[in-house]
């Protein structure tokens, strides 16, 4: 047996998030500028709150929370955490609750790009700055509604997956897409990025099915079973996260397929998926690095040190391929 998602301990330094680009550098956010000014604090003397959005049921979330906790511990900062279990209202209540409990700074991983308004407002009223990670609050303003954002470019992840898919398949055949959870902007972006890129490249690949796998292994498996039963011609699968991809692998195995019969491209970079490349089941993994801790706390430090925080910090996500998978396996989470 192997427990999934307890990898970060032995990951090398290169596993940590690297900044690819920042934007909004012209007006870096500082306590004076933040929403009409917030008090300056010493992070060591205050409580920081972290609001996790989804169940810690997949390696991405496990690693994300752990990374925040580890970094807080490393820096000797007092941290409280909540988990909204994918319930938007609970995330709002969680954030308001943490403010009421005396958290002076917040790091939140928004459940979605919309809908956190009441929580943001409560934070504004209490003059509690919010650093956001992972999912971007698309319609809100940096340094007003929130301090800044660190995360991946999900559309680009999708586009890179398309590129990898074209390479893996030699640009021919039928592709099935395993969509992430419905109604989540990550799903929307990764789908858009993938399809747009295929179009842009004038790819000959044909998307024959798009079914939701809810970001879970079980659903990914069940759906793949049905899809390959109905379309034996499917020669490639684009899974919008690794869990679903691993479910798809299980389905292919059960159907008697051999590694490589169906090319799978996926996003996240979990250990299981990278191992899947090593084993020949998976063609490529586009990383979505969840180790937000160091960059997030660094941003807070920079904020209070008046160095300023850019509106957007986009991290550089790696790509795992058959060429580098074995070597990089230790860095996967």
């Amino acid at each position, binding site marked *: *047996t*192997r*427990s*999934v*998602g*307890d990898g970060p301990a032995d990951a090398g330094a290169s596993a940590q998030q690297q900044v690819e680009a920042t934007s909004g550098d012209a007006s870096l956010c500082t306590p004076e500028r933040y929403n009409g000014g917030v008090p300056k604090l010493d992070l060591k003397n205050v409580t920081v709150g972290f609001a996790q959005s989804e*169940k*810690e*049921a*997949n390696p991405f979330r*496990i690693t994300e929370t752990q990374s925040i906790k580890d970094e807080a511990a490393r820096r000797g900062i007092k941290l409280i955490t909540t988990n909204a279990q994918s319930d938007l209202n609970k995330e709002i209540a969680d954030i308001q609750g943490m403010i009421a409990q005396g958290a002076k700074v917040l790091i939140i991983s928004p459940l979605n790009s919309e809908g956190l308004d009441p929580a943001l407002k409560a934070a504004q009223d209490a003059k509690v700055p919010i650093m956001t990670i992972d999912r971007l609050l698309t319609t809100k303003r940096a340094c007003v509604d929130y301090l800044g954002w660190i995360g991946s470019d999900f559309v680009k992840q999708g586009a890179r997956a398309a590129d990898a898919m074209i390479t893996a398949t030699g640009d021919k055949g039928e592709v099935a897409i395993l969509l992430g959870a*419905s109604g989540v902007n990550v799903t929307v972006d990764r789908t858009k990025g993938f399809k747009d890129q295929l179009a842009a490249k004038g790819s000959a690949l044909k998307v*024959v*099915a*798009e*079914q*939701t796998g809810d970001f*879970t*292994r*079980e*659903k990914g*498996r*069940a*759906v793949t*079973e*049905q*899809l390959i*039963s*109905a*379309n*034996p011609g499917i020669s490639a699968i684009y899974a919008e996260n690794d*869990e679903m991809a*691993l*479910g798809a692998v*299980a389905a292919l195995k*059960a*159907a008697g397929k051999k590694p490589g019969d169906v090319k799978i491209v996926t996003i996240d970079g979990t250990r*299981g998926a990278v191992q899947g490349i090593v084993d020949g089941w998976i063609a490529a993994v586009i990383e979505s690095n969840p180790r937000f801790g160091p960059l997030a706390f660094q941003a807070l430090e920079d904020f209070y040190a008046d160095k300023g925080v850019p509106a957007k910090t986009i991290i550089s996500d790696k790509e795992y391929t058959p060429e580098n998978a074995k070597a990089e396996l230790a860095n996967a989470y």
Partner: protein
Amino acid sequence: MTEPTVAGRTGAAGRVTWLSDYGVYLALGVLLSFNLVFTPNFATVANLRLQLVQVAPVAIVALGMALVIGTGGIDLSVGSTMAIAAALLPLYLGYGPWPAIAVAVLAGAAVGLVNGGLVAYGIQPIVATLGLLVAGRGMALVLADGRLVEIFDPTLAAIGGGQVLEVPLPVLMALAVAAAAAFVLRCAAFGRRLLAVGGNRPAALLAGLPVRRTLVTVYVISGVLAAMAGVLTTGRQSASDPSFTGLLIELSAITAVVVGGTPLAGGRVRILGTLMGALLMQLIIATVIQHDLHDSTARMIQAAIIVAAVYAQRNRSGT
């Protein structure tokens, strides 16, 4: 009142009775025909086998649910029980697959014991089992530290994916459970007791039947079957996934039972109908995915079919 009002049954009595008894078969037939004609690669042994394998855990859970519903109860905790079983397997695999399975099944029995105890004490089944729906999932996550654990055990894999004479083991298990349930209901004293408790609990009590023991037993059976379904699922996907194993399966199971013609009020159980109900729901999902319809469309179609099926049975089942 003494006799229920049965307006409308007078005229087309025969036809309506037929529909109410065979509505689910009719719906199944229609859906099957549709697929045979319009779904490419549907009529293959492999595809048929796939549908049966996928429905097996739901069917097993639904059979337990049918017995519970026969007593006038309901068991919302089955999904969480599956998760608990799944979470326990990797913890005890060190002692070998069979001890681990035994532990998982015992845990299912324990959950059933708590449910049954609460119901026998007089707590309404929905609330009693709602408690364990919430707490049970939490326990599973605590046990597994919230993580999915991959399992490479050949025995478990065989249970989940093996075949005997070309028939997958999960399917055989579902059929065996169905046969046992049907036999018990028909021939065993326990079956009569169960139906009497569901049909008129005070009467069963005054007839000297061990009402509480019957209730506890039924919930234990449901718990054990759910745990078995959890073991199957885990074996089949070679991973113990306490977060998602059995999530919302209670709704599928209840739907299968009710669509299969078992009244929620208790006092009557349809085993074959339950199997057919489960198969119907499975076929809807398969149809939707294989025709690449949207998830939202799938839900709306399911809703319509559920209502149509229970509408067809409304006179008989007295629901």
